[in-house]
């Protein structure tokens, strides 16, 4: 069979001929356009039936895990052992300040009044300040504390209008947070 076209139009062996599918019909075009949308909507509609999961912060709060590291707490002795109930556990040893990688803890210790002690030891923390604007919540202070006097709590609401208000004093750290953060239940 001879080629009717002149030689100069003869295509080389590297030319690929495009083969086109037949033009789709109306129905198939529609399906092609909305298939993915419908697939997405399937999930949406499915979840719609499950109900709302949005947490209405700040009216509602996200529960945190038990080991969540939030705002620090200083503790007092609770049980009545050797008359220590109500005394601060912190003796102002400054080990937390030494351990702190962000250098945000400041402790100034003082001599305890034996008649009217503040802590259970010879010394107590006259000044205990944590600059929460600088804290990285690593928990080293808790780890360093020889008396379990400082722990990291669950409170994470720490925004403020003023940087200096984020320096928490001893009284603030000894107080319970005003609203407790909900804890995540077992297996949740």
């Amino acid at each position, binding site marked *: 069979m001879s080629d009717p076209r002149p030689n100069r139009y003869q295509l080389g062996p590297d030319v690929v001929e495009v083969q086109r599918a037949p033009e789709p019909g109306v129905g198939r075009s529609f399906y092609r356009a909305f298939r993915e949308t419908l697939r997405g909507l399937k999930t949406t509609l499915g979840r719609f039936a499950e109900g709302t999961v949005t947490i209405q912060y700040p009216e509602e709060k996200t529960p945190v895990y038990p080991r969540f590291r939030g705002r620090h707490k200083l503790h007092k002795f609770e049980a009545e052992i050797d008359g220590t109930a109500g005394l601060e556990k912190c*003796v*102002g*040893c*400054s*080990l937390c*300040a*030494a351990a702190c990688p962000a250098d945000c803890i400041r*402790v*100034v*210790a*003082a*001599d305890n009044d034996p008649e009217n002690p503040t802590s259970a*030891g*010879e*010394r107590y923390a006259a000044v205990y300040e944590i600059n929460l604007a600088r804290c990285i919540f690593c928990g080293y202070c808790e780890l360093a504390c*020889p*008396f379990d006097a400082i722990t990291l709590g669950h409170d994470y609401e720490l925004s403020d209008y003023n940087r200096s208000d984020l320096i928490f004093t001893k009284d603030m750290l000894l107080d319970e947070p005003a609203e407790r953060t909900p804890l995540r239940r077992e297996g949740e």
Partner: protein
Amino acid sequence: MSSNLQYRSPYTVVDALPPGYSRRPAGEPERATITFTIDGQEIQAPEGIMVVDAAKYGGVEIPVFCYEPKLGAPVGACRMCLVEIEGIPKLQTACSTPVRDGMVVVTKSERVVEAQNGVVEFILLNHPLDCPVCDKGGECPLQDISYGWGGGESRMVEPKRHFEKPVALSDAIAIDRERCILCYRCVRFSQEVSEDYQLVLLDRGAGAHVGTFDGTQYIAPFSGNIVELCPVGALTSRAYRFRARPWDVEQGGSVCTLCPAQCNVSYTVRDEQVMRTLSRENAGVDDGWLCDKGRFAYEAWESDARITTPLVRQGDKLMPARWEVALTAAANILKKSGPRTAALAGGATTNEEGWLLRRLMLDGLGSPHFDSRRGGEFDFDVARTLANPALAATMPDVEWADALLVLDCEPVDDMPVLDLRIRKGVRRNGVKLAIASARPSSLDAGATRVARIAPGGAEAFTQALLAALGDGGDVETLCENAGADAAEVRAIADLLAGAKRPVIVWSERLAVTGRGAAPLRAICNLADRLGIAAKDGAGLLEVPLSANARGLREIGLLPTAAPGLMHCDNPGLDATGIAAACGEEISALVLMNTDPLSDYDDPTAWSAALAKAGAVISFSTWMDAATARHADVVFPAEVGPEKDGTVTHPDGRIQRLRQTVERAGEVNAGWWVLNELGRRVGVDLGVKVANQATAQIANHVGIYAGVTTAELGGDGVRWQERDAAANLPRPARTTFDLTPPPAAPSSDGYLRLGVFRSLWSGGEVVNAATLATLAAAPRRVELSPVDGERLGLTSGDAVTVKTGDGEMSAVVALRDAVPAGFAFVSADLRLDEGDEAAVATLGRALASTEERSAEVTK
């Protein structure tokens, strides 16, 4: 702000010489170098030093608790330093075994490690491990060694021993006996270094603890050192208690300017406040010790009594004023008074402040009337002879002398740390000590010879000594004039004549006896007679009456001499002259860090002088009597850790002060105030930073030529050892014709009155909580028990001491050492107590050589 301490690792030896030594003291024996092996490496070290120290030459660390070379011979009490030495079957204590040539030491074998673990466990048996509460936590050798060499576990299940804690050992020190590991350091300090013999180990076995024998407080001039020595938290400073942890603080090195000893200190600073003062060892100055005054003075600096704002007198009252107002007021006074202004500088003045004050007076006001001495004749030849480097004794020379004469000087009050240096020399190096003083000295016990002289008889004693050395004169007569025993004087003369390295320590008080430079001429002759200039390690050491007296003299804060003891064409009035000329030739007075009413010997004259002086400008830290009553403008003065500048030690060491804390309140630098005053009276002193004043001194003071703060570093440099010492002008003569001294004043049938000044005086003592009880002690009159019996007096009796037309109240203290016929009164010339009569009496007794009798009645 950063520390200027050169880091000196305790475990490596950088230099064979201790810090501050430029050369080995002449008397110290040479040590051969030996080679020994430690942990497989061959090391060279001086022969005979302990293995612990020798190990440092190879960078090997052997842990110790009880070993402290400053305390003298080791005791081997703690057993922490056990090492294996080849050829000896049992482990040896490295701290008490001298190293020998060819010795093979092993510090890391299984046996040694087991022994070390065992010792740590043993020491920790009774140690309470209350580290979080303990003040030593973080800087505790026991913590460090437990981590480094301990086994980590204790098998002790029984209860630990308990003591009541903490107990006050004194106002300054708290003792926690549970924590004590019985290393004996504090006891050894008390017994062998300060020799106050107060601390002992009480009870035996598990009940052993440190305390004073009869349970009284441990009160001694150097008691604070035991806090620094304690390797655990058993002895803590009550003032520093719980104030900071090592990681809360920075250390800043400087020099204490409270007395001529000029100890090197390191201030512990937290939040721009000095928390405590630690010693900074400089073997050429303080040997690593501090007195309690220097150690606890920081409490006074933060007390409310300090002046922290400029004050200007309005009517009767000194009112706080802005700097601008105070400077203008002062400048107006100075401009009005011009060349009729006079200035006095006290011992806390740095060389820089003294230099700028000199320039302000000379260049700004054209007045040559300024003085840093207490008056008395200034003889160029005597001053230049005494400044001769060949005649200068260094502090280590005092310790290595073979004969030491302490002339009319009580080191523990005049220059406390010198007292420890002399004791060290006597105890460890066999220094033969001779004492010539009126009042029994605390050094008497260790002295080979003690000559009691009459108060004011030091010049006659010196001449008697010269006569006994064959310099002409009649020994018997001179001894009689001195009130001394001729046999004793001859014995001292023999002692000094036979010595290879005689050292004479004398007090500047000899220069202000009212006899002019005559007593100093006798000292020059004595130095010549003993051939001190030619003897290596021999020398003279003057104990000045104020901290930086030598520096101020040498930079030229003298009315009669130019900087560097050069000739001066236009001499002015000296301190005595200024007092006399106030109100006439002098119409305004500048007082820099000095209160003439308590620092100078004649408060009566000064009281009149200050009242007559038209205006008084005072640079002061405290509201002292002169400032409170007479000052028209008061500039708050800086205290130790706030100062920048240089001072000169009595042995010629130029030392650098470095600012370590922000100045309190509105206090400004002394150089800044002087520069501002200069600007206002029309002279540019050209100082914008403190160093520029140092540079001016380096340019204009011949013997300090080219000195820079960088050269001084942390240890200071003796100017006698620099090339610039050649700029010291030669004296026309070095020996002098002596005039016969007057006979010791008669006692008129009463007791002979002597006066002494205690270390425990001044604003720093009164206002420091720890020291206040010492300062509050009532005026004391010391009598011999013989006179006590004769007069029916016992210790503690309140008496009246009458002398001349004055009288004062005092409390009797009978001292066995006081010779019969003498009464010694503590002259704390504090006018704020309201007993001016007493102060005037004491002042007269101090100032005159005639009025020396006292009647003591109940």
